[in-house]
């Protein structure tokens, strides 16, 4: 049986305000689903609700991986059930190296911690990360691009069944975006990774090719289609879905893009 991440009727609120109003989608092993949507549509909330971040209140629905309900589980248990989240703003952890953390993560999942350093080094090469960074404290004093590469190489070492990528493109220049995307895409065939790529911009999807594109607006999936939909959105914007017409769907969140100055989604740490 092929693996699947199944989200049904998911509703959630933050501070008493309902943000997710019923999300339904299913990602199969090896598939790439994109979730696109304007600012405030609930994209990041979806990512954190899936991972179980404190402060987000789930009010209904279900999220399962191969039938195992995740919503009653603690964050670490969800990770062990096969879910991974690449954070939009990866957290700095002073004094803790990537190897220290991933050795614990791999050991917790029943893997061999002795392989971790070697696997990290191999993954670093694949996303163009300087291996010296692996000995430094996680994300401390790193650029936005280095942080996003860090997220991706953790994904490579941990080999989850499903990965939620929350604005993985923000803070990445074109070359880095290409390397990160190609690593994630390779994972879909290497270990059957299913991907839920959350993004505001279509530029990610030029590199990380989705099988399915969903449009999230006001807490609901309002449209679902093939890869062409991203192209269509690039042309028309989110206006048709009740999004802010001022918001460009193209543009680039990258630090290397001059347009980044006016981009509300650019990684402020980049």
């Amino acid at each position, binding site marked *: 049986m092929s693996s699947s991440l199944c989200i049904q009727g998911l509703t959630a609120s933050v501070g008493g305000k309902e943000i997710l109003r019923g999300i339904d989608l299913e990602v199969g092993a090896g598939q790439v689903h994109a979730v696109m949507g304007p600012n405030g549509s609930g994209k990041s909330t979806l990512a954190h609700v899936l991972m179980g971040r404190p402060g987000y209140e789930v009010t209904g629905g279900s999220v399962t991986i191969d039938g195992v309900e995740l919503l009653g589980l*603690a964050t*670490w248990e969800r990770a062990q059930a096969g879910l991974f989240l690449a954070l939009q703003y990866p*957290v700095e952890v002073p004094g803790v190296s990537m190897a*220290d953390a991933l050795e*614990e*993560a791999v050991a*917790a999942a029943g893997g061999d911690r002795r392989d971790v350093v070697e696997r990290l080094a191999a993954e670093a090469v694949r996303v163009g990360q300087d291996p010296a960074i692996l000995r430094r404290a996680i994300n401390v004093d790193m650029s936005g691009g280095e942080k996003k590469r860090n997220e991706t190489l953790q994904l490579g070492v941990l080999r989850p069944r499903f990965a939620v990528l929350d604005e993985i493109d923000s803070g990445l220049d074109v070359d880095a975006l290409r390397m990160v995307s190609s690593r994630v895409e390779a994972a879909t065939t290497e270990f059957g990774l299913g991907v839920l790529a959350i993004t505001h911009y279509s530029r990610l999807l030029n590199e990380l090719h989705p099988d399915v594109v969903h449009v999230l607006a006001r807490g609901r999936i309002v449209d679902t289609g093939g890869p062409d939909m991203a192209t269509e959105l690039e042309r028309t914007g989110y206006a048709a879905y009740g999004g802010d017409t001022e918001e460009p769907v193209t543009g680039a969140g990258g630090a290397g893009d001059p347009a980044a100055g006016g981009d509300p989604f650019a990684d402020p740490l980049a």
Partner: protein
Amino acid sequence: MARFSSAGLPSSAEEIWRYSRIDDLDLDAFELSDAGDAVAADVGVGVGTGSGDPAARVDILDGWVSSVELSASARAAGLSVRRLSELTEAPGGVGGLAEGADAFVDMATAMAPDALLIEVPAGKAIAGPVLVTHRLRGGGRATASQTLVRAGRASQVSVIETLVSDESVALHVPVVELWLDEAANVDYAGLQLLGRSAWCLGHQVSQVGRDATLRSLSVALGGDYARLRTDSRLTGAGGSTRLLALYFGEGTQMHDFRTLQDHSAPKTTSDLLFKGAVQDEANGVYSGLIRVRRGAVGTNAFQTNRNLVLAEGATAWSVPNLEIEENDVRCSHASAVGPVDEEQMYYLQSRGIRPEVAERLIVLGFFDDLLVGAPAPALHPTVRRMVSDKLQRHLASALPRPGAA
């Protein structure tokens, strides 16, 4: 103990003793350690120093210097490690730096059976640390010790002092004086690993001469109430001092630090970083002052104190202060008291790491950050293991079974 009856002691009404447990001290409850039996006794407590080839090893029991061993190469390089009483006349200034600081320094001066004098002649660099191990027999005894380090012009030496005792009641008053002549380079590390019924009232004072460099690390993991006052006086132009401390209290332990960065010469630098953690019902105190005196133009003085509070019943106080009488100086202080960062916990847990393991990683990381570049690197693994053991005890009991998010 009559001479130092409790009547003559300071009280917590004085600012420098605020938050302390000084009011709980009953000197009359202690007896003085006796000379005769002290050196012969073996308390059977020790700690692995992990330092490959020390320049010297000194054992001190209840303040009595019981043995001094110098390596041949250190002796050839001119290192001298002696009891002060072996000298007919003490070198100028030695033994006077801490004088008059408070009642306990007076007490140590009067009570300490002998002082240990570590001297390095001008221009000599001593390879390997001088390892000094203080053992206390406890058993309700009050003891004191004096360690005097005199580093000559452009000399270099590293000194590591360790304090250990068993679990019986003890009171110890250690005084450490570090004297750095022009361009001297001294690394000093003090590890307080006393038993959980010991009181320790320590005083470390350094005088940093022209272009001299002091790096000091204080580690406090043991004791019931353990206080350390650290004064660093920058008296020569271009002198620099780096003061580091790591402390971690559990149970009802209290670690209490008072610091003074005292700049009286131009272009001097002091950089202080003290990091503490408290769990269970432990207390931590940090109170520090940067003083820039008139004439200390171009001073750079930094003071940072960070505290992790790992349990609801634990408390940390942090009181930084500045007193600046000169212009053209660069000073900063920062202090923080708080729990383990929630974002960091979430991040590590999102990788499948259990909360107790995530917390251990974060707390160890918090301290590892401080140990980078700190004196006595050979001891860091031991310190790390001891911190980890403390955390283990805490996490085994304190963390609730993680439920739904």
